[in-house]
């Protein structure tokens, strides 16, 4: 799952245009929303698109997103479990 976590960090920086952030800056268990990386509601929606586009996962209930996107760790675990790509 290490490779997936690195991949996710890279993707987040790219997709969400986090210009001043490097992969090393993101810890696996840091909160992505709120205080941590400071992502907002549009970022959450973009991550839902990413789940579909890159991992073939369609979120039936977008409200699930809050738990899934809590941290890199929770995201990687969810993707490993549910990916179809």
């Amino acid at each position, binding site marked *: 799952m290490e490779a997936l976590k690195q991949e996710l960090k890279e993707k987040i920086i790219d997709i*969400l*245009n*986090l*210009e*001043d952030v490097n992969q090393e800056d993101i810890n696996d268990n840091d909160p992505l929303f709120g205080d941590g990386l*400071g992502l907002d509601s*549009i*970022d959450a*929606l*973009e991550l839902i*698109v990413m789940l*579909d*586009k890159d991992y073939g996962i369609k979120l039936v209930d977008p409200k699930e997103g809050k738990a899934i996107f809590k941290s890199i760790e929770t995201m990687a675990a969810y993707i490993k479990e549910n990916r179809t790509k």
Partner: protein
Amino acid sequence: MPENKTYIQSFCKIQNNEIILDGASIFKLEPTTFSDFSKKVYQNFGINYSKFFKMDNLSKLAFLGTELLLKNKLDSEEENNIALVFANKSSSLDTDVKYQNSISDPENYFPSPAVFVYTLPNICLGEISIRHQLKSENSFFIFDAFNPVFMINYAKVLLDSKKADKVLCGWVEYYDEEYKAFLYLAAKEGNLEHKTETLLTEYNK
């Protein structure tokens, strides 16, 4: 100062990879992409605002022009009642085309909310309002070319009715690497009269 006149306090122009503030060139680059130019402006002036990199080109252009025009002019203690009256010719077409491309292939159909939100020209006003905490009058218009007569009339109503203390008037045109921004601050006091000839002279320099 006669009651019924309005004045220009400051102006900023961005074109051909150059920024001109009150007639003086404050930044210039050799020809390069807007993406590169805007990033270098951001770095050069020490603008610390990570949201900048999420913006589309139109918003970046409007943001940078405003940032430099308002530098050292804002009251940090009190709210600033500066209205934003902006216009351009191409609306948000630069981003509209990008968004349309993201939905035109049924095999690769992934509409992006982060792109879609910028398919409205007034979003740049929202970005500016958030950055400078301007809870003020905002409106975005479309004209074929910079329309000084309209700007003068509309700004005057806002100032006379006291719905704004100052009005930031902006022409922010961007499409596919072709851009021009001409922004100025209008108020009830100042040295330069808010007249069509003055505006056109500065715009065309």
